[in-house]
């Protein structure tokens, strides 16, 4: 069923109702797992999901999967699919519940040596200052009118309120403000659920990490991004919180009706969709933009809190903590790409995948255009994370898309049985990593062993030619919900 067409590239030929082939960028180990899951007839099966996405109306070129691929809802996590604007559909499963979940990375003037003596105090301060975990409440309380402004202006609203620097906006995807947002497409329940959650981390696989740049692979790109070996950076992984979740829930229902209304043929209920150029499709896209702006605002508030924590413990000016980049990995966007030699506009879904534009694209910050914007890849709390960048090959083969993380290898249930939270904490401590978490069970479920080897995932993306490593980051402090 799978044909190897490159070092880390596999083709799933068109069969049955597939309109395009599947194209999977992965190492042999991942491919073997995908095949085994398919052969065993597992209910949740990423390879089958790649094929099912390939059956969707208006899909262009191929149904893609990146090296961190694992089963999702309809779309695999690590799935990318582009659609023709006239004949194509927009798919809720291609974005997910956590709209614009993503990562922001900040750089500091500190080195690992300079935080050694205050690492415990810094961990404690961050644990106190950053609201995280179930039931946590944000420090920024908004009115109904202000929530609507957040949905339209995103990070810009937060910066205008004094929670950040104007400069931050230059280094956030889309300037931290997605166009086309319409608060009228977001339910009152979604907005009410968000009142207390602006500036909160969440739980599960969300985190805040203080990291050190351990290795530099691409001196030129690292220099342009302002990164040096031994420098302390901070990465924040969170999304649109309850508002995004409710938008996802509300529109899953809308799209299920639309799938029937427009007689759309889908292989799985989770691929509920609507034509891009339909009332339902346009409303959903406007709502996704709202959710996306909410996520940008969320990460902006947390950035402000992080600056405050570092200023208090390490004595550095808050403004010396600078945004490297902020990028989402659950999105749907209108982009221009070359398809069959011609440039055209397509609607790209990236579920557990980031944009990874190579050099020369105007979507990247001006200072980054020579090398392309950073891709922020969260590893595991016990191993490493990476900052990578896009390539010309990636633009051609993967619609300029990049990996977003290690990808899970074990279910939460299996991880909770195999690992004990306190053992994981001790093991990290032995490596010099301080872990502060609001949930001990959560630690077990997020144990490093529950994830694929980030080194292998990064290697596969590099061998496939679609992404290139810039630096590796080693965790020093991990804050979990």
């Amino acid at each position: 069923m799978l044909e190897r067409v490159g070092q880390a590239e596999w083709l799933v030929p068109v069969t049955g109702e597939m309109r395009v082939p599947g194209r999977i960028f992965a190492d042999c180990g991942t491919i073997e797992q995908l095949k085994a899951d398919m052969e065993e007839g597992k209910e949740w099966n990423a390879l089958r999901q790649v094929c099912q996405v390939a059956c969707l109306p208006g899909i262009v070129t191929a149904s893609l999967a990146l090296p961190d691929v694992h089963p999702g809802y309809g779309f695999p996590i690590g799935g990318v699919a582009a659609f023709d604007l006239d004949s194509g559909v927009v798919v809720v499963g291609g974005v997910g519940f956590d709209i614009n979940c993503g990562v922001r990375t900040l750089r500091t003037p500190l080195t690992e040596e300079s935080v050694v003596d205050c690492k415990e105090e810094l961990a404690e301060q961050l644990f106190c200052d950053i609201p995280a975990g179930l039931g946590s409440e944000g420090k920024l309380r908004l009115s109904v009118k202000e929530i609507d402004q957040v949905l339209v202006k995103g990070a810009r609203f937060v910066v205008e309120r004094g929670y950040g620097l104007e400069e931050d906006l230059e280094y956030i995807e889309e300037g931290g403000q997605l166009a086309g947002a319409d608060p009228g497409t977001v339910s009152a329940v979604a907005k009410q659920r968000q009142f207390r959650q602006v500036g909160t981390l969440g739980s599960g696989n969300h985190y805040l990490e203080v990291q050190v740049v351990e290795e530099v692979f691409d001196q030129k790109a690292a220099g342009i991004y302002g990164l040096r070996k031994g420098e302390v950076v901070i990465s924040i992984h969170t999304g649109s919180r309850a508002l995004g979740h409710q938008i996802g829930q509300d529109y899953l229902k809308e799209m299920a009706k639309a799938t029937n209304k427009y007689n759309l043929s889908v292989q799985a209920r989770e691929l509920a969709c609507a034509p891009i150029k339909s009332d339902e499709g346009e409303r959903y896209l406007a709502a996704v933009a709202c959710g996306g702006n909410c996520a940008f605002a969320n990460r902006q508030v947390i950035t402000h809190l992080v600056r405050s924590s570092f200023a208090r413990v390490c004595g550095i000016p808050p403004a010396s903590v600078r945004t490297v980049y902020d990028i989402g990995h659950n999105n749907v966007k209108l982009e221009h790409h070359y398809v069959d030699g011609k440039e055209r506009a397509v609607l790209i879904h990236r579920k557990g995948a980031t944009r990874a534009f190579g050099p020369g694209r105007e979507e990247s910050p001006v200072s980054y255009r020579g090398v392309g914007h950073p891709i922020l890849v969260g590893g595991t709390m016990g191993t490493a994370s990476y900052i990578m960048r896009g390539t010309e090959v990636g633009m051609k083969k993967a619609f300029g898309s990049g990996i977003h993380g290690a990808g899970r290898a074990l279910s939460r249930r299996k991880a909770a049985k195999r690992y004990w939270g306190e053992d994981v904490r001790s093991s990290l401590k032995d490596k010099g990593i301080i872990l502060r978490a609001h949930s001990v069970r959560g630690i077990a479920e997020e144990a490093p062993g529950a994830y694929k080897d980030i080194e292998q995932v990064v290697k596969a993306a590099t061998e496939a030619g679609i992404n290139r490593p810039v630096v590796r980051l080693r965790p020093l402090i991990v804050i979990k919900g």
Partner: protein
Amino acid sequence: MSPFKYLDHTADMCVQGIGTSVEEAFCEAARAVFNLMVDLDRVVPETRIQVSVDASNLEFLLVEWLDVLIGQKDLSRMVFCRFGVNIVTSNNGFRLEGEGWGEELNPVWHRAKLEVKGVSYAGLHVSKGKEGWIAQCVVDV
């Protein structure tokens, strides 16, 4: 009390409520969801909320039921440990009149665990089998 179960899913959690009736299965599915979030044994059923939802079929009804309950953790900061459900047929399919019993979330006392983000259509399944009625779906955590 009838059991609930969790089935394997790589990234998230598949909850399964089992009961001698479909209503009981819906209640157990709700307990399974809230057990992901808090220690149910520590939740006191002191406050009641009422839920009314409609759907074209039992599976979508399960999604609607769980969606309303999950939303309450943010709207009223409530978590629940006990549920009651009555399901009738209606012109549009099915109507559920239900209630949840619980209290305001105290993350420390209730030993807060994961936050459930939403109810997907993955693994969505309501049927009667040898074990009784099963109400199942994957929830995003």
